[in-house]
């Protein structure tokens, strides 16, 4: 029985988030590595959509993982790791947004949503998921932030209000607009 797991046979690659989280909490750096590779991409995409650009996403994701490593002991339900990570990366992204606001970087000109280069993009455009990506991209930045924080990161209205520095009524308004826009784009209910 070999002691050194070869890359292809690494059993941890198939392990559940819960298993990996517990091991990482007990000090297993490799388990944490598997988690980072598994969830990093989504966290990066999410941060990019929140921030409105890819400039700071790498930093934000790194900070998020560092926080996660240090606070793994706080995670009561290891199986809920992904949602927990999404909240941490949201917080780190929001910190960046606050810094921008404090420095009056209010003019956030957003480049077009970076797309991965797939040759058959046009053909796939009809798929609902792609339509949603495009719709999210079309959302004004503030509406998108409210939407993502609410629906992907699970923030309450009050938390969004605090995070983005917006009055509660504005948050509700932005969410209402976002919902309406997305529903219309998805042509889901007309």
């Amino acid at each position, binding site marked *: 029985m070999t*002691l050194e797991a070869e890359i292809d046979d690494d059993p941890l690659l198939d392990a559940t988030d819960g298993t990996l989280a517990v091991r990482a909490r007990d000090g297993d750096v490799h388990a944490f590595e598997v988690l980072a590779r598994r969830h990093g991409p989504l966290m990066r995409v999410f941060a990019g959509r929140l921030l409105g650009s890819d400039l700071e996403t790498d930093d934000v994701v790194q900070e998020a993982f560092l926080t996660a490593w240090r606070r793994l002991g706080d995670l009561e339900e290891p199986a809920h790791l992904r949602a927990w990570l999404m909240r*941490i990366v949201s917080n780190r992204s929001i910190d960046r947004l606050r810094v921008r606001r404090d420095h009056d970087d209010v003019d956030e000109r957003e480049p077009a949503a970076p797309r991965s280069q797939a040759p058959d993009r046009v053909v796939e455009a009809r798929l609902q998921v792609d339509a949603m*990506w495009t719709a999210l991209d079309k959302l004004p930045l503030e509406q998108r932030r409210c939407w993502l924080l609410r629906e992907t990161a699970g923030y309450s209205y009050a938390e969004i209000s605090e995070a983005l520095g917006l009055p509660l009524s504005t948050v509700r308004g932005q969410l*209402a607009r976002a*919902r309406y826009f997305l529903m219309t784009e998805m042509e*889901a209910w007309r």
Partner: protein
Amino acid sequence: MTPVDSAPPPGDPEGLPDAPTDGDLPDAATDGDLPGADLPGDLPGDDLPGAAAVETIDGFTLDDLADYLERGRSPRDPRIEGSADCRLALQALERLAPLSRASLEQEAEREPDRDEAWIAGLLETIRGEVVGGRDIPVGHPDPRTVLSVTEAAARGLVRRAGDALDGVILTSTTFDGDVDVPGAPVVVRVTIAARYGLDLQRLADRLRRQVVAALATHTRLAVTAVDVTVDDVWLASDVDHDLEGGAR
């Protein structure tokens, strides 16, 4: 925690490490706004057509319906449930969040493999932060020489012993007892996930032997017992030649 109905709850039931408030599941009812409250027809940056501001479905705004959805559609509102248009809208609303999530996940999967630098740096930092836990003394005749193995290192040994067994993945490892007192009795408690179909009794015995051997070689712990709990079982995706059968 109020269970949220239907779509997988995006909310995080955990207390959030750095959140300004507790990370409770989203509960629209506590936010203090009444359903049907003034819509933002007059907020700065309002660039949607006026129709968006006052669009109602049988008297309900999208906001109302979204809140209703989040309350788990309870208490049941007969005016909403009795309206076909409302229910259609609810269906559409329900699809939005999972679709949104799926579009992010799809993009994440399509991302080209990043360079290794980001993770190498991260792991290097983390390696330096592995909390050692208690120091397990290793004796030495000279009192001015203090040798020890950290609890974290010992846990790593136990994990390694478990991982070396086919069909076993160790989850948690703890040492019960005063590990920092030489000779104090210590019970090693491990939980494992095992592949379905394996003879768990034999597996546990093998694991015990491996754990005891590893700790005897590398520490001076007085291990009195190894307590193995199987708390998860997984199915092998391929046919498993190692199937040993036997009852659980």
